[in-house]
């Protein structure tokens, strides 16, 4: 785009920031909304808001976390409008792997089953590369709370993604 807006004093342009982070912003939105079309709409709307506010961004190092934050805010705004699942096309939902056993859960399916409150910090950490302290600041909570959510998320995933034939409760195996 011509005449790209830049942050502060000659910082990274908005275009550059979008090109650098678009993929992970989409993936983050996807794991919040669990729907491709909705995720694209959230990112597009978030970046429109971001574009309007970008000239006020002074801290170039914080552009990435700022972009993730506005995507997060846009998701919750969309949820509040209850438009989150309006017009969802069944074709947009990830196809479940038919090879898996009825109760077997591959990692992506297991992630689908995670509550947003657990998937959100996980996506920020793994996709965004943010530390627990940075995630705490973005989610406006404590670092300890983030660590707890991340630990529980991984424990839940490890419990869900189990080898075939190992789905019974521990007590039922003996």
């Amino acid at each position, binding site marked *: 785009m011509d005449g790209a807006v830049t942050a502060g004093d000659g910082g990274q342009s908005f275009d550059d920031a979008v090109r650098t982070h678009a993929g992970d912003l989409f993936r983050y939105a996807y794991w919040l909304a669990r729907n491709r079309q909705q995720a694209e709409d959230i990112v597009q709307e978030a970046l429109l808001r971001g574009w309007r506010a970008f000239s006020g961004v002074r801290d170039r190092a914080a552009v990435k976390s700022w972009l993730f934050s506005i995507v997060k805010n846009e998701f919750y705004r969309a949820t509040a409008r209850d438009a989150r699942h309006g017009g969802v096309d069944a074709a947009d939902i990830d196809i479940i792997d038919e090879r898996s056993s009825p109760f077997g859960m591959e*990692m992506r399916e297991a992630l689908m089953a995670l509550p947003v409150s657990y998937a959100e910090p996980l996506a920020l950490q793994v996709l965004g590369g943010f530390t627990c302290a940075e995630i705490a600041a973005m989610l406006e909570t404590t670092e300890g709370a983030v660590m707890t959510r991340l630990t529980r998320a991984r424990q839940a995933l490890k419990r869900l993604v189990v080898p075939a034939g190992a789905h019974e409760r521990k007590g*039922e195996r003996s």
Partner: protein
Amino acid sequence: MNCLDYRRILLSGDGETEAMRAHRMTCVSCAELLKEHAAFEGELRGALEVPVAARFADRLLGALPVPGSVEAPRQDRRRFLAAAAAAAAAIGLGLYAWRGRDDPMAMACIMFVMKDETKSIMMGAMPRAEAARVLAGSLPLERLDGIGKVMHIGPCPFQGGTAYHVVLMVPQDKVTLLIMPDTPMPARARAAHDGMYASVVPLRKGSVGIVGASAAVVDSVAGALQA
């Protein structure tokens, strides 16, 4: 640093600190745990990295107003807003049916999803054969299979009794079912709270609570179960 601390910090995902590394060098089980954890993290990253549409960044940038101009949204954006307005109107009509007093049982189903669902999943699934047997009189598993993909099923304590917690992936979204074979319900009841919607519908034996993130998906599943 002990093994418990090592495991706790490792699962939080912030990486291995110097103190953790020192512990691992002297602990065979934690060294083994790190190897397993690295494999798990690789799988986790691969799963989170869903494919992104081709030229996604270009499309995003192309939809933004031209710099320096008075904001003139492009045609595709106007179409998007019009579609969003139509969807909002449709949802508004659907929500009309959800007005009124929240039913306590439906509200309890929402609270379960908000507070206890993950814990219930972590308790583990039950064998499908056993699930089929205990639910045969109220909601046969084949019925659920016809509606969506059963991702989890297991017993859980609920409202002083035992319910069967089902995570069901339907085309629109994930929904949670709480099948209560011993809790009859005279008529359908609803509740909405904090962006979640629940409907409890009577079954041949007992009832089932359905919880989802939109009224539309809950109504859709309730209709399919009652059909």
